[in-house]
């Protein structure tokens, strides 16, 4: 019990005093996972719209693959991305291994299926006559897409939250492709692992509290926007 109190006290001390290393780790988590979420949104909404609106052979298989991808184990993603990015791997010459960019790639692969799945569900829930009506009113394909995305924007916020939540909370892939380098690729989750391994439990708890607070704040903002939108 004493340990837990120590951890909580340490967390408030760090938040209160503005420990530079902890803040830079927090900022890095936000930056890496935020970029990954952004990329996942671009990929996920495009593929999601395709799967929701087009009928083509193998579509069921594709949707099944996306649903499987929603539970993609981060360590598997980490291993595959690492093998590609190692200097000995096919993408080795890019020099991306052990950089934040490598972590963005891995987290994008983890978050994209979630965004895709949520997009398929969100667009699938729209009234089926909406699209023919839009076309009848003379909308181009892109105008149509923009309008239905607007229509489905509330459930799409859930996609952002799910994508960001998955990206910021995963640890296996970040460790493997980032290497947990101090000042470069150490993010909140990998810092927690390291502190716990070293028996520094109070900082580990403090970093965990900051991670939870970060996810909470992001969701608070997104939920706030979502609710305001739904009232208006």
């Amino acid at each position, binding site marked *: 019990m004493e340990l837990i109190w120590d951890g909580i006290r340490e967390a408030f001390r760090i938040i209160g005093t503005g420990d530079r290393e902890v803040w830079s780790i927090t900022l890095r988590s936000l930056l890496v996972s935020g970029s990954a979420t952004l990329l996942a949104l671009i990929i996920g909404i495009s593929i999601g719209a395709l799967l929701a609106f087009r009928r083509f052979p193998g579509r069921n298989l594709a949707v099944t693959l996306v649903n499987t991808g929603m539970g993609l184990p981060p360590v598997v993603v980490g291993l595959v991305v690492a093998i590609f990015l190692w200097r000995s791997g096919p993408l080795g010459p890019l020099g991306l291994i052990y*950089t934040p960019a490598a972590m963005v790639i891995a987290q994008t692969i983890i978050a994209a299926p979630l965004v895709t799945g949520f997009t398929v569900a969100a667009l699938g829930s729209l009234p089926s006559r909406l699209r023919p009506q839009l076309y009848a009113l003379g909308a181009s394909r892109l105008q149509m897409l923009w309008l239905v995305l607007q229509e489905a924007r509330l459930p799409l916020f859930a996609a952002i939250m799910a994508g960001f939540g998955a990206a910021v909370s995963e640890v296996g892939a970040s460790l493997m492709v980032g290497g947990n380098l101090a000042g470069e690729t150490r993010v909140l989750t990998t810092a927690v692992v390291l502190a716990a391994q070293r028996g520094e439990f109070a900082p580990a708890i403090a970093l965990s509290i900051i991670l939870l607070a970060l996810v909470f704040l992001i969701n608070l903002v997104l939920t706030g926007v979502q609710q305001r939108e739904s009232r208006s």
Partner: protein
Amino acid sequence: MMPFFFSTDMFRPAYRLALLMLGGVLLFGAACGSDETLILATTTSTFDSGLLDELEPLFEEQTGLNLKIIAVGTGQALEMGRRGDADVLVVHAPTAEEEFVEEGYGVNRQLVMHNDFVIVGPDDDPIDMRSAEDAVTALLGLRTSEMTFVSRGDDSGTHKRELSLWNELGFDPAGEDWYLESGQGMGATLQIANQREAYTLTDRATYLALKDVLDLEILFEGDPGLLNIYHVMQVNPDTSGDINASGATAFVDFMVAGETQAIIAEFGIDKFGQPLFVPDAGRSVAELTEE
């Protein structure tokens, strides 16, 4: 009509923020990538003890290189060297290292420091390991007891040493009920042993670094067979085109330099009341084993 992601009102602030973030990451990646990098694959024991945290900024300041420290077991570190995924190694499994050098993967191998392995376990020591005469007989008691032993099980230097002790006993503990393999670094393994009230083989540095959170005591030490020797070596640049040979040479020189060796000699005294490593640059392994 412009593509939807360039248009209209609602997402505009969100996109601006997003683009800003993307730009930030690219800049940030570029900033990290602009320095010449050097990848050091090292054992978890040198890393978990905190020694490399202290040496890294010094090395970077002296050379202007960006040192990337990847903490893995010795076996994995050697494997990274074989693949050309690391430039320089700090490892502690002399037999495997000699093989590595003979195969042509390693060059410029130098003795850096040593400490020793100890066997730790619960203070009440049910199998009376404290009275064992040597490391091999200390382990012998585990076979007939109900006590658990936690092995690293990760092909690290510590794991290799543990296996060689069982090998001397002519006994293979794999699959025994009392033999657990953690598959993790030394810090994590010590904590598992602590929670299970089990015995484990550890390097002294990691044990001392974690002692405050452990109820484990040193139950066996001092066998010459438990000497823990660390070497630094660079990966042979002829084996792969991507090796940073000059950086690796600089790192080897740095590890055996007088100033660095003095830091190693002092490291841990302020925190643990004793040094965690004994600096050995310029000496030979034979001199160490004679002591």
